[in-house]
Each structure stands twice: as C-alpha cells, then as structure tokens.
C-alpha cells in the first residue's frame, strides 16, 4: 500500500468572473516525484498557490490533508513550518547578498545575544551547497552565479528549512541543457533521501524521464493521474490528456482571402537583455493582408520576446535580422518608428504595459497617436472625445462614459481599450499577444469578431496564444515556436492540437 503524504480534495478556487480551479483533486505519494502538466492557464500555478498558502485557507473550497492531518495554511510561513517549500519560476533570491545570507534569509543562524553567528551560518551553508552538488564559496554574492546555480541555491535554501515536500514551478524553463540535466540528477538524489517533489513542467521529455506519477490538469479540472513507473506512458499519451477537449463552436465564421504580403521578418535573432543567450534564434516568418497568422509556443519559447523585438526593439539587445513592410525593408529601431511603419503590438500584460490605469478611457485611446489629434502641439480635446466615443461604439466598450478611469473596467473592456488605442494608429499589421487572456467568454467572442472585422478590412493580424483551440479557431496559418526557434509552419487545415503540441515541445536533443 502506498503512503500518501499529500491529498488535496475537491479544491475550487474562484476569482471575480473566472473559476480558476473546479473540484480539483491531487494525491501525492511519499518520496515520489510527481509531475503536474497542463497548458498555460490550466490552473497549475493556482493549485500550487493554494497548497503553499499564498491563497490562504478560506479563500478556496475543498480540503488539504498533509501527513495525515487536515491543514489550513494562512500564508507561506505556515506551509513552510509544515515542511512544504515552493520554488517559483522567477527565483526569489536577493542578488547582492551572499549565498549563505540568501539561504538563511528569514531563518538566520543566531548565536549569543541574538546576533547572527556567521561562522556557523557559512559552515552550514557550505554543507547544504555540498548536498546539492554546488561547489561555491558561501560568501559569494548570488548575482555572480548563473541561473542554473541560483536554482540550486534555492533548493539548498529549501533543504535548510527541513523540507518534506518540495514544489518546483518550471524549474528548467530558464536553464540550458547541461544545467537541466544537473537539476534532474539532483531531484533523483533528493528522492533517495525521501524528499517528495512536485514539479510543474512543460518539458515532457523531462517528465517521462524522471516522474513517478503525472497529474494532468485542463481548464481548472483534474483530467487524470498517470502512473509513470512502468515506463509505458509516452509523451503523446500526456499530450492527449492536456489538449483533449472539444473545439467549441465558439469562433465566429470568416471567409479567408489573403492578399499581398504585409510583413516579413528574415533571420531574426535576439539576445537576452542581461544574460548571454539567444532568446529568439534565426526566425523567418511573414503575414499577408487579410490573414490571421498564429504563433504557438509554450511559456519561455520566446513568443513575446520575438514580437516585442520586432516592435521597435522593445525587448532584448543585439537584435539582428531584416524587417520588411509591404516588400520594402524598414528600420524600426524605436517604437515611434514601428508605429510609423504601420506596426502595432497589443501586449499580453495590459495592466503593466498596455494602459495608464489611473487615467481615463479617452486619454488611453489617444495615447499612441496623439499627433493625429494635435496641431502645432495642441491637442484638440473635442476631437479626442469623438474618437474615444467612436471606439466605444465600434468595440462595444461597456462604460457609462469615456471619462471613466480605465483601472476600474473589467478585463474584457480594458482589452478593448488597448485594442482601440492601437486601431487608432491605423496599423497595417497588428500583433496581438494573448488577446483574450483573463477575460470572460462573452468578451472573448467579441474580440474574435473584432479580429475578423480587421482582416476583412485588409489588415494583417498575428495572434500569439497559449490556447491552442483559440489558434485553431482563428488562424489561417500557424507557426510553432520552441526555445526561440521556429519548429514548424502549417496551414490551418493540417493543424491539430496534437501535432502542434508535439512541435511546441520539440527540443534540440533529449535530456536526462
């Protein structure tokens, strides 16, 4: 009989307007590596936040049983006291503190009189680093270590807290192949020491190589838990669980009639702004007037980075490659030049990059093309209101007035304001990055309808999305992106969720 260390039963977590988790159950055996798979937005991270107390007990329905006892965590400190430690994708280390200081942050080794005993701290840290296979001086500042080593420091920090259950969220997403292999080897060693591990990952080859069980989550529900120990479960089997949903008749019909080429990029490479690696590597793609082209890729594949680097080099450094608009090579080295060349980019994170939340609809709509409303630097406020009113009617922004503050609108209406802003620049090509993220079903349908109207007007549209059904429902053609490279291109007639997912998870070489 298996010894269950963790059981989550009937977990339901709602956010305003969205049910993120619906009756999710999860059972983890003591001492195993348990993988959690699912598309972006399926609810994996939400589930882990419930487990680690980020969402305190009472803010969700259902029960969590750890080590045989029901637990009600009020915060991270609570869950850590029980031996549950979560390591997030974005590492939570303080860059200028030493490795030892980071490991014992909030958990300092006290000596006499309450002062920190640095000798003991450094000695303990050295032992912990040794146990995760990291040969570094504990006084080295963390910033001098690479991402892979920083990940190991995080694990050492978890070990210092007497961890029983270690949760890793996309631990290898930012790592190169060698570091990934090291990390997986370390996880195996931890398993031998009896530490249970939950790992969220998109890299199916890693999961099949290391996991003992895999739970698949889809649309906020548990689909299945696969026993991996027999070695018979293949990547294809997991993919089927991840995508196997009905393609709802959810997407408005459109007659596809592509015209001449509007945008083309050739041999496009982008370097990470601070690290020495290519985030986008030798990408070629093009889009025609009246065409919707999809870019499918998992988190960290370089989708947003590709789009933003095209849009006036808003991301990365050392951007190389050629950019053509309507057959003419253009330089778009700043956002203003990109806008002048008819390129618009609708961000995936509208609150951080898309909107001035404390200002009203009117001024957000005009923000990217204020020059069109101005003569000699003076803005015609009445025309501006007219433009905003026009957008409100065209895009059906639900608000009592265009003077309403954008921060108070719902997600769907905020997204329509961002779209209005870019439509007012009158672009030839719109790059829509996750255009329906975090908005409700009704608003999604409206956004799709708007996209159809735009291509009917002869605009070219590039859609970046994590939701494969959305791409399959909207696009004429789909590119797949994996680790910064284009791994495939297919017309919509040939694309299925399975073959897209296969190309999206295609790696340079197997790991493990």
């Amino acid at each position: 009989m298996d010894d269950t260390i963790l059981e989550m039963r009937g977990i339901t977590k709602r956010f305003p307007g969205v049910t993120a988790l619906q009756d999710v159950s999860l059972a983890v055996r003591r001492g195993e590596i348990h993988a959690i798979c699912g598309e972006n937005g399926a609810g994996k991270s939400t589930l882990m936040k419930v487990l680690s107390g980020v969402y305190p007990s009472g803010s969700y329905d259902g029960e969590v049983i750890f080590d045989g006892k029901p637990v009600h965590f009020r915060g991270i400190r609570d869950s850590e006291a029980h031996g549950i430690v979560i390591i997030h994708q974005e590492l939570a280390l303080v860059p200028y503190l030493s490795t030892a200081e980071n490991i014992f942050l909030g958990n300092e080794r006290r000596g006499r009189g309450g002062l920190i005993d640095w000798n003991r701290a450094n000695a303990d840290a050295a032992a912990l680093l040794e146990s995760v296979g990291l040969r570094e001086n504990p006084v080295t500042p963390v910033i001098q270590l690479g991402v892979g080593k920083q990940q190991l420091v995080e694990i050492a920090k978890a070990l210092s807290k007497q961890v029983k259950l270690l949760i890793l969220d996309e631990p290898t997403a930012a790592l190169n192949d060698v570091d990934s292999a090291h990390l997986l080897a370390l996880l195996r060693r931890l398993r031998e020491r009896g530490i249970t591990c939950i790992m969220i990952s998109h890299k199916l080859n890693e999961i099949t190589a290391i996991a003992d069980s895999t739970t698949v989550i889809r649309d906020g529900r548990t689909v299945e838990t696969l026993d991996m120990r027999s070695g018979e479960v293949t990547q294809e089997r997991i993919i089927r669980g991840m995508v196997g949903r009905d393609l709802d008749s959810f997407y408005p019909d459109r007659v596809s009639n592509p015209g001449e080429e509007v945008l083309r990029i050739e041999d496009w490479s982008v370097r990470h702004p601070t690290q020495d690696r290519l985030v986008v590597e030798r990408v070629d793609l093009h889009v025609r007037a009246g065409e919707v082209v999809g870019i499918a890729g998992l988190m960290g594949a370089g989708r947003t980075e590709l789009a933003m680097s095209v849009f006036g080099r808003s991301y990365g450094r050392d951007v190389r490659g050629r950019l053509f608009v309507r057959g003419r090579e253009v330089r778009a080295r700043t956002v203003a030049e990109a806008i002048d060349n008819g390129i618009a980019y609708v961000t995936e994170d509208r609150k951080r990059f898309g909107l001035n939340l404390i200002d009203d609809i009117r001024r957000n709509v005009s923000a990217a093309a204020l020059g069109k409303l101005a003569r000699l630097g003076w803005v015609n406020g009445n025309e501006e209101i007219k433009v905003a009113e026009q957008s409100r009617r065209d895009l059906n922004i639900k608000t009592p007035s265009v003077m309403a503050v954008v921060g108070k609108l719902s997600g769907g209406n905020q997204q329509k304001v961002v779209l209005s802003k870019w439509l007012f620049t009158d672009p030839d090509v719109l790059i829509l990055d996750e255009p329906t993220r975090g908005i409700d079903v009704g608003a999604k349908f409206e956004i799709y309808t708007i996209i159809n109207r735009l291509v009917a007007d002869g605009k070219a549209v590039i859609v970046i999305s994590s939701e494969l059904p959305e791409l399959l429902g909207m696009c004429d053609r789909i590119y797949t992106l994996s680790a910064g490279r284009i791994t495939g291109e297919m017309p919509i007639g040939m694309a299925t969720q399975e073959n897209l997912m296969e190309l999206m998870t295609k790696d340079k070489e197997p790991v493990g």
Partner: protein
Amino acid sequence: MTSTKNPSTRPTASADSAPAMALHTGTSDVRTLLMSNLRQSGIYVALVVIVALFAILTDGVSLSPGNITNIILQYSYILVLAIGMVIVIIGGHIDLSVGSVVALTGSVSAVLVIRQGQPWWVGILAALAVGVAVGAWHGFWVAYVGIPAFIVTLAGMLLFRGLTLRVLDNISLSPFPAEYQQVAAGFLNGLIGGQGYDAFTLLIGALAVAGYAVSGFRTRLARIRYQQPVESFPLFVARVVAVGAVIMYFAWQLAHARGLPIVLIILAALVLVYGLLTRRTVFGRQVYAIGGNLSAATLSGVKVKTVNFWMFVNMGFLAAIAGVIYSSRSNGAQPAAGNMFELDAIAAAFIGGAAVTGGVGTVVGAMVGGLIMAVMSNGMQLMGVDQSLQSVVKGLVLLIAVAFDVWNKRRAGTAR
C-alpha cells in the same frame, strides 16, 4: 468590493457586472461626480476653511487689503517653483535643487547688474539662460544617462549652491537699480484713475471673471455638442458666480491697497500658460502618460527621454524666474538665498493633490496647495506663533494631506 445589486438603472463602479449592465449617458450622477473629484474639491474646501479660520483668529487682519498684497509678494516665487515642481512630480521625478538654482540665477543677475553695471534686462536674460542651462544639465543626467532625479538634483543642490558662493565671492550684493526692483515690488496703479481705489485693478478683475465665464461656457457648449455629460445649468451658473465673487473680492481688496502687483500678473500668466500646457498639449499629456505608466508610455511610442529632458529644462527656466523675483524682492543676492525653497515647492505640489508615484497632479492644484501653506504661515506670523510651532504645523499639514490622498486612492479601489 461590495456593490448593491440593482442592475436596473444606475451604473455602478463594479467591473464584474459591466457586461450585463444597461448603459446610458447624460448628466452624470452628482454623487459620482463629487466622489471622483473628492481629492480635487477637497483641497479647495481646505483652503476656504483655512482662510476662514485665520480670518477669525486674527480678527480679520489676515484678509485686510495690505495683508493680501503681502501674501502675494511673499510667496510668489514659491508658487512659480511649484508650477515646475508639479510637472516634474507628475512625470514621476523630483527636483531638490531648485533652492540652489534660485540662489545661483539671482546671484548671476546681481553680479551683472550691480557689480558690472549692466542694464536690468541683461541681468534677467542672463539669469534665465543660466536656469535653462542648469535644467538641461539635470535633464541630461536624468533622461539620457538614467540616473534617478533624486540623486541628480541632490548633487545639483550642492553643486549650484557651491557655484553661487563662487559667483558671489561669498559676500552679499545689493542694491539693485529701481527698474529691477519693480519686478517683485512694483504695482500697476492709477493707470485709469479711481477715487481711493485703483479702477485698473478692478477692470482686470472683471476681465478675468468674464474670461472665466466665457471659456467655461464654450467648453460646456462643445461638450454638449460632443454629447458628453455636463453639470446642470444652475450648477454651472453657481460655480461661475462663486468663482467670480472670489476674484472680484480679491481685486477689490487689492484696489484698496497698492493696486495690482506686477508679480501677480507674471504669476497669473504662468498659471494660465502652464495650465493649458499640461492639459492641452501633446507634451503635457505625455508627461502624465510617463508618470502614470512608464512602460505603457514607452510602448505607445512616447519619446520618454526627450520628454524627461524638457521637463527639467522647464523646471530650470521656472527656477530662474523665481530667482529673478526673489533677488528683486530681497533687493540683492545672498549666498544663502533660496534655502529650503525646494521643500516648500514640493509640499505645495503634494498638498495640491499630486501623487508620490507620479501621473497625478494639476498646476491649479499645486497653486492651491501653495496658497494653503502661504495663508497658514502668514496667519501664524500675524498671530505671533512661535517659529518652532509654525514648522510643526506645516509638517503635520503636509503629512495629513498626503495621508488623505493615500486613503482616498485605497477607497477608490483603483486596480493595483
């Protein structure tokens, strides 16, 4: 986020119910209008209360013609600084150097006019040029090198204080010729006569009221034409009458003292120009956009570096104007001139509703904020309150004003 469920008519602020909500435009709900303008209307109310309070405490002396004139002369340069400061603060920066720049520009002018005997206008032009150059220096470091404005202008505060000492050879210069003194101490009086009062001042007051009414009415008409909500007509008339009454009372008092101060004309022109600049020009709107969300502004094609640069050039220009006014008023240049002016200007902007995080604030608000400080200081001086206590009171007012602002924002529940 509990909102009463009445989906029938009234638009609520609740975002969730938006799709199902029936919509209507028209005259906006008076309550929402008041609530959304609470931070703005709040400072006007505060100003009125403080004016009334000190009028009572000083037995009306604070509202006497002579004292009103005094307040204007005494605080004009702080108000000029506050105009530039609020723009810098809206853009998400700060300028700690303006006190030193006031001293430097004033002393350059004094050296030219007093020591070298140049005409008065040469001194003024030279001061303005130095102010612009200082602003460009700050703007370069903030915008193009990317050093936080707090550091750049803290360095500037030391740097330009030192240069002031060097320019003045560490001694005070005085006096200026009579023309130069007119800037801060001059009055327009008796231009068109009057018996015991200055008719010209009253005329200017009347013109200001008429201008306010006409421009307000035209805005109203345009809004109606564009089908935007406007306040009801009686409310509009009441507002114009109330503002008109305040202006005319003010003009009446001035007319019974020494007439219209030249510095008030300068100040009014600056408030008008910069009020329009911030609200109606591309530059002004980009300042708000940068302060409100830097990333979004960058991704909207706003040339952030250019805007930041000119923001500081403008601050230097206004600091130079303040420097000229201050040197004119004190009739000379002193090494320690302008000490702590930056703090008064910053306080005026924040009391006037500017947000520490940027993106929020108005020129008129900063003027009201500055007046609140001015009336308080002046009133306490009239009452003979101890200097130490005055400082305590001013500090508390600043703290409470910003605390109110923070509370108000939290109550409004603006996302993030």
